[in-house]
C-alpha cells in the first residue's frame, strides 16, 4: 500500500470490511487480560484448583504493580468493553483492533501477575493455565489471533517445559518475558530457554514490565507509576546489552528478540554509547566480536507503539535514520492501551518506504510461524 493510500485511508476511515490496512499489516502487540483467576481454574490440575480456592488465590486478579488497569494509559476510553476491564473481551478486540485496522494477524501478549510470584511451581501452574485459556478462549475463536507463550521465568527448566508443551501449536509464535526480573536476561541461567526458543523458531518477546525483584532503576524506588513506565526504556537497554555482552547471539545465532511497548527514540543514543564503551573495554568480553549496535540491529526488533519520538517529519526522519536499519521496527497498536487516537497507530510522517516494512515485511521476517499456513484447530491438544 502506498503512503498516500494509507494517509487517505486514515482520513477517510476504514474501507468496509477491509479495515485500515486491508490485511496488509501484522499487529505485533495487543493485550488480552485475565479478568480473574476464575477463568483459569478449569485449566488447573486438581492440586492447584483446590489450592486456588482454599488459599483464596481466586480472589485476586494478580494485577501487576506497574500497570494499574484503569489508568488512562492502559485503558483507551473507546477501547473499553461495555463490561469488565480493558482487554478482557474478545468482541471488543475483534472490532476495535482486528477489524478496524484490517490486521492479518495480531499477536496477543497476556501480561499476567504469575511472573511476580515467588513460588516457582505455582507460577508454572498459572502460566500453563493462562496459555491453555488463551488457546481455548481466544485463539480457537479468532483465526487472526496469535499469542505469546507465557512462561514462569522464575525457573528456566519449568519455562522450557512450558515452551515444549506449546511449541507444536503454531498459533503460539513467541516466548514472552517481562523486561525486568530476577537477573539480567543474558546470563547463562536463562540459556536453556533460548536453546528451546531457537530450536522451535520462536522469537523471544521482552515486554515492558517488572516482577519488582529490584527497584526499577539503579536510583531506587520512585513514587509514581509514571516513573516506572518511563524507566522501561532503560530496562530494555540494560537487557539488550546484557544479551550482547553475555554472548547469547554468539551461542544462538538464529535467535531474535522483540522488545515490546517502550518506543524506539532511545535506541540511537544507546547504540552509540554501547559501541563506544565496547571499543574501550572489549577485551573484557572477547566473544563479542562485532560492535554491539551491529549485533542488535541484526537480532533485535522493537514494536512501534508507544511512539516516543516527536511526530514532526524533521525529528522522526532523523531518529529513523539514526536507528540505522529499516528492519527493526514492527507495527503494533498496543491495544487496548492509549497512546494515540482514532486509527493513527502509524504516524503519517514516517518515511513511506518504511511503512510497508513496518506493517508487514518486518513482522513476517521476524515471526517465521506467521509465514506458515495457520493451523487453528488441527493442532489442539
Amino acid at each position: 500500500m502506498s503512503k498516500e493510500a494509507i494517509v487517505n485511508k486514515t482520513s477517510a476511515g476504514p474501507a468496509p470490511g477491509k479495515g485500515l490496512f486491508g490485511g496488509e499489516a501484522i499487529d505485533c502487540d495487543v493485550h488480552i487480560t485475565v479478568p480473574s483467576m476464575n477463568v483459569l481454574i478449569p485449566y488447573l490440575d486438581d492440586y492447584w484448583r483446590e489450592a486456588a480456592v482454599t488459599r483464596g488465590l481466586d480472589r485476586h486478579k494478580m494485577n501487576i504493580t506497574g500497570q494499574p488497569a484503569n489508568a488512562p494509559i492502559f485503558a483507551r476510553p473507546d477501547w473499553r468493553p461495555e463490561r469488565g476491564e480493558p482487554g478482557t473481551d474478545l468482541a471488543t478486540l475483534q472490532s476495535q483492533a482486528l477489524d478496524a485496522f484490517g490486521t492479518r494477524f495480531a499477536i496477543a501478549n497476556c501480561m499476567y501477575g504469575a511472573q511476580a510470584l515467588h513460588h516457582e511451581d505455582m507460577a508454572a501452574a498459572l502460566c500453563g493455565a493462562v496459555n491453555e485459556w488463551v488457546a481455548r478462549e481466544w485463539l480457537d475463536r479468532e483465526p487472526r489471533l496469535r499469542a505469546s507463550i507465557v512462561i514462569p521465568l522464575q525457573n528456566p527448566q519449568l519455562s522450557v517445559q512450558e515452551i515444549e508443551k506449546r511449541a507444536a501449536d503454531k498459533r503460539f509464535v513467541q516466548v514472552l518475558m517481562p523486561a525486568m526480573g530476577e537477573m539480567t536476561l543474558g546470563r547463562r541461567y536463562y540459556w536453556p530457554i533460548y536453546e528451546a526458543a531457537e530450536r522451535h523458531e520462536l522469537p523471544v518477546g521482552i515486554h515492558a514490565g517488572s516482577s519488582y525483584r529490584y527497584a526499577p532503576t539503579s536510583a531506587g524506588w520512585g513514587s509514581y507509576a509514571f516513573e516506572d513506565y518511563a524507566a522501561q526504556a532503560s530496562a530494555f537497554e540494560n537487557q539488550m546489552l546484557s544479551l550482547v555482552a553475555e554472548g547469547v547471539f554468539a551461542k544462538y545465532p538464529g535467535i531474535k528478540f522483540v522488545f515490546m511497548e517502550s518506543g524506539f527514540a532511545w535506541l540511537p543514543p544507546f547504540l552509540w554509547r554501547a559501541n563506544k564503551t565496547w571499543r574501550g573495554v572489549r577485551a573484557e568480553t572477547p566473544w563479542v566480536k562485532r560492535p554491539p549496535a551491529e549485533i542488535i540491529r541484526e537480532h533485535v526488533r522493537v514494536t512501534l507503539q508507544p511512539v516516543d519520538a516527536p511526530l514532526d517529519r524533521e525529528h522522526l526522519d532523523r531518529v529513523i535514520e539514526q536507528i540505522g536499519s529499516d528492519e527493526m521496527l514492527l507495527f503494533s497498536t498496543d491495544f487496548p492501551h492509549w497512546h494515540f487516537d482514532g486509527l493513527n497507530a502509524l504516524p503519517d510522517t514516517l518515511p513511506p518506504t518504511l511503512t510497508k516494512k513496518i506493517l508487514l515485511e518486518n513482522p513476517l521476517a521476524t515471526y517465521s510461524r506467521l509465514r506458515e499456513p495457520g493451523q487453528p484447530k488441527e493442532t489442539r491438544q
Partner: protein
Amino acid sequence: MNVNVAKPEQLTPAEQGLSVVDCDIHPAMKSVDELFPFLARRWQDHLKTYGSHVRQGLSDALAHPRMTPDVARVDAWPDDGSTPGSDPEFMRKHHLDANGVEFGILIPLGRNGGNQRNLDYGAALCSAINDWQIAKWCEFDKRLRGSITVTQEDPATAVAEIDKRAADKRFVQVLMPPRTIEPLGRRRYWPIYEAAVANKLPIGLHVGGVGGHASTGSGMPSYYIEEHTSNVQTMQALITSMVIEGVFEQFPDLQIVLIEGGFAWEPALSWRLDKHWERFKGEVPHLKREPSEYMREHFRFTTQPIDEPDNPRDMRHIIDWVGVDRLMFSTDYPHWDFDDPRYALNNAGLSVAEKQKIMSGNAKAFYGLQ
C-alpha cells in the same frame, strides 16, 4: 610508567585561540594519611580499624573491576609511581598546562563520605575531603575549584556542611552521587536543595555512588561494559525522579549539573517524558509544565565521555536538540576514558563561537569563574 599515548597531531585549544574549563578533574591521595590533618583522632582510629562500610560486597575495590589500574590513563602515572591524579605538580604539567586549562573543577571520588553507612564517619570524611581540596589543590593552583562533598543520606548534616563551606568562593557546587538510597527527587533530599539554593550553589551529580540498588531493574550485570553503560540510565532515572516529584516547582532556582553521563540521550528522554505525561497527568497534578521544560531549565551536562554517533552529522543534531548553552566541557582526567580537548568536539560541526561556549564560556558563566 609514563607513556605518551596521544600524539599531538591536532592543534591544542590554545593554538586554536580557545580557552578550556575542565568541569571534571579527579584529584587523588597518595595515601589516606593526607586526610589525617583534617580528621579528628576518633575518626582516624575508626578509619584504620573499621574502614569503609558500604552497601556493596567489597569495601576497597569495585565489584566490576575496571580495565586499567585505578581506572587511569596509562600515561597519567607520576614518575614516582604514585596514584594518577595524586601529584599536584604532575597534574599541573601533564594536564592543566599541557591542555591550556583556564579553570578546573575538582570532583573527589575516593573516600566518598556520601556512600558510608555510618553517617557520622561519612560526615567526618566529607568535611575532611573538603578541607583537603582547599589545602592540597586550590592553594596549590589558583585555577582549581572545589566541590562540597556531603552526606546526602543525612540531610541535616549535609546542610550544615554546605552552610559552613559556602562562604569560601573556591567551592563552586555541592557534589553528590546519582546512586543514592532513594531516587534524588524524593523529599528526604529536599533540605539539601533548599540549602544549595539559599547559598546560590548548583548541585553536581557525578556518576557513581553506592545506594544499595542493583545497576539495572533486573539485578546486577556481569560485565564492566554493562556497568559503565548503566550510569547513563542512572542519570535518566534521577532526572525522571527530580522532575516528576516536583522538585523544580518547589525550588525554581535549583540548578543541576550531570557529570560524566553524556548527553546524547537527553532529547529522547525529554520526548518520552512529555509523551507519557499526557496520560499520567492525573497521577502527578503538581507538575504545571511539560517535563522537557523543567529539564531544559534545570539540567546541564558535562561533555565527557563525549557521545560518538555513527554519523558525525548527528552530533550536530544532538547538540542542537540539547542546546549549546547547556553543555560544559570536561576531560575526566586522569581516567582512561579521558576526552582530549584537541579532539573531543572536532566533528560536531560547531562554529568557533559555539565551540568556545562549550569549551569554557558556559562553565565560566554558570559557575561564576573569574
